């Protein structure tokens, strides 16, 4: 017998799943949408993606260094934030705006609130909201076609200058104006929108991967989409018009939001019941913003608003322990 063996309280075994592997899975799930964004909108999309991811990673590192906080082993959560932020931006956005968004997401929304797990709002979405308020026109000019430009220098220039595609109405804009939309185009993503929100097929592919890997459950996305659909059915004024309903579901940021942003662990309820309540709340709010409000989009603000209610929802849906149900309900 040599030396002493490790001593610790039970359990002595741990699952191989770590925060890092979860973040890796989310990154893998976002890759199809990213690739499609690049294919659809051209190389400039890649530059936007790289800019936000790099900004997020550097911001977190520099913050920890300056504040003399321990630089934790890299868990990739900053990469996820950067990716989601990029997917939420129009391809024509000036790079400095994308960088500003990344700094805002990590510095203001995440780190100042205490870092990973402590942020009240989803960092990428809060940054999108911040950019939408600060630069409303630039955040709403969407390319319909690939941005083609001859040289690298042009890629780095202000995106709007190199826009030769048609900068036109998004599907939601068309619906709002009472027009119909081409559903097939919506599904394969050949429409206007942010880098990541148009490729429904590719988003669903990534979402399926997350569900398969048990990273997310369908509780939030399904209750969100279904309650929104019901809202649109009742208040959309079109009755059961499949073009309108599907257009509403596939046309904006709903799929991206429901599967990748509303399911963010940190800013969504942890109890199954709470998750369904949360999803329904998001659906109704999105409906109000999109259909009753004057805007065309509503996902961003609906989720941000939902984020703020999470502590309350968690409190209201506190689980009752096994074998204690009657004690609580009986009285």
């Amino acid at each position, binding site marked *: 017998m040599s030396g002493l*063996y490790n001593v610790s309280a039970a*359990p*002595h*075994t741990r*699952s191989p799943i770590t925060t890092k592997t979860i973040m890796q899975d989310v990154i893998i799930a976002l890759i199809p949408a990213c690739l499609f964004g690049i294919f659809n909108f051209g190389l400039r999309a890649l530059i936007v993606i790289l800019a936000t991811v790099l900004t997020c990673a550097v911001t977190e590192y520099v913050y920890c260094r300056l504040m003399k906080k321990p630089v934790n082993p890299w868990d990739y959560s900053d990469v996820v934030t950067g990716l989601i932020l990029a997917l939420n931006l129009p391809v024509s956005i000036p790079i400095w705006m994308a960088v500003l968004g990344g700094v805002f997401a990590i510095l203001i929304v995440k780190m100042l609130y205490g870092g990973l*797990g402590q942020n009240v709002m989803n960092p990428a979405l809060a940054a999108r909201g911040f950019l939408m308020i600060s630069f409303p026109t630039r955040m709403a000019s969407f390319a319909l076609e690939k941005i083609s430009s001859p040289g690298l220098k042009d890629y780095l220039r202000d995106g709007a200058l190199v826009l030769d595609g048609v900068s036109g109405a998004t599907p939601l804009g068309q619906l709002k104006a009472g027009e119909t939309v081409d559903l097939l185009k919506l599904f394969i993503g050949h429409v206007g929108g942010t880098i990541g929100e148009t490729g429904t097929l590719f988003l669903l592919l990534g979402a399926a991967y997350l569900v398969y890997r048990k990273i997310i459950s369908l509780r939030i996305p399904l209750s969100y989409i279904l309650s929104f659909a019901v809202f649109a059915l009742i208040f959309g004024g079109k009755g059961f018009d499949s073009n309108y309903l599907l257009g509403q579901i596939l046309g904006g940021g709903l799929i991206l939001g429901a599967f990748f942003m509303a399911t963010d662990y940190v800013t969504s309820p942890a109890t199954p019941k709470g998750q369904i309540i949360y999803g329904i709340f998001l659906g109704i709010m999105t409906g109000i913003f999109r259909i009753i409000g004057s805007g065309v989009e509503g996902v961003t603000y609906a989720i941000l608003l939902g984020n703020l209610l999470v502590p309350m929802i968690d409190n209201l849906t506190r689980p*009752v322990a096994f074998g204690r*149900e009657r004690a609580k309900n009986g009285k």
Partner: protein
Amino acid sequence: MAKLRFKGIHIYDGKNLSKDKPITVLLPKGDLVFPLLQHAGKPARPLVSKGDQVLVGQKIAEADGPVSANIISSVSGTVKAVEKRLTATGRMVESIVISNDNEYKKTEGYGQERDYTKMSKEEIREAVKEAGIVGLGGAGFPTHVKLSPKNDEKIDYVIVNGAECEPYLTSDYRLMLEEPEKIIGGLKILLSLFKNAKGVIGIEDNKPEAIENLRKLAEGENKIEVKVLKTKYPQGGERQMVYTLTGRKLNSDKLPADVGCIVCNVATVAAVYLAVAKSTPLTHMTVTVSGDAIAEPQNFRVPVGMSFAELVEAAGGFKSEPEKIVFGGPMMGTAMHSYDVPVTKTTSSLLGFVKDEAAVAESACIRCGKCHEHCPLNLMPIRLQMLALNNNLEMFEKNYGMECCGCGCCSYVCPAKRSLTQTITKTKQQILAKRH
């Protein structure tokens, strides 16, 4: 197949290492150490002192108070000392040390056949008490106390726990394969105590041979049924077992007897059989020695009091230096800095692991909710940990912290590797200590 479900985890079970190794009988070489506390409750009171001669089957310490248990010598020889010794719980416990004369002289009447049908209930309970039987599943609750509920007639289930849901452990499995008649025999004795009860043996579906074996033996016994359980940790937990087999829910204030159930581990039932029908007190344990650091994982039949160091040697020693030694299963067992400790009634295994998976740093909670998703008691472990760390004991109790059974699922699944079970268990103990 039992239909009712509970939350919990699916986990690598490591049972292949030792499940096909028959039980090998080992004789002790060195001194035998009998801690006076190897059960739940009060330590036993020693009946022998230094220099006394003892026999196999002799009571060397007797139950002190209602919740305590006798301790029986497993060898013959001389009492060398009564002193504090290190046990697998990590504590120094007053122990009787016996120097083995290797003659195995038995007490009078040891091993005599008895017809339990001719024994009164009191005689059966007395035999169980005299034999020093305690819950061999690990909790060590004195069995004679468990078998004496307030009202025998209200017991309608005697549940035999053959789940063995802890990874790596195969001693119960081997017992079900090699000595099923003892289990059925023991169950029949228990059923004779409770006339309204039927016997149910619950076995996880990853042990088909054991299920088949016991089913064959139970044929024609109209009061005994073998039920297949889904393999999931912690199926063998008392509350999960009672729930999946009867649909009745227990909380931390209730004993199984309160909902008409008596739950015993298979090894305990076999011990009851030996004690009642064969006049053989509890002197031997079936023990698994396994883990990736052990050269030849094995199942042994060894006398209580034998040093685990001898068991490790008999299993070929370590093939590579372990980082961690665990007594019991990896989910709920105790890690020890040394393995030169005696086999007791509550240690059914020694596991040696090359790598200590628990030696990881905690990181920030990302609120994934997995701890709640897998908690078999539907608790919110991360919330309990936060409350415990803030020393908010009142809210800890309001959030059902005292219900935790310490199964370890939350710590196992946590991606941030937070010490959830550990903090909750410690806080529970703090609160319990304050209550007394």
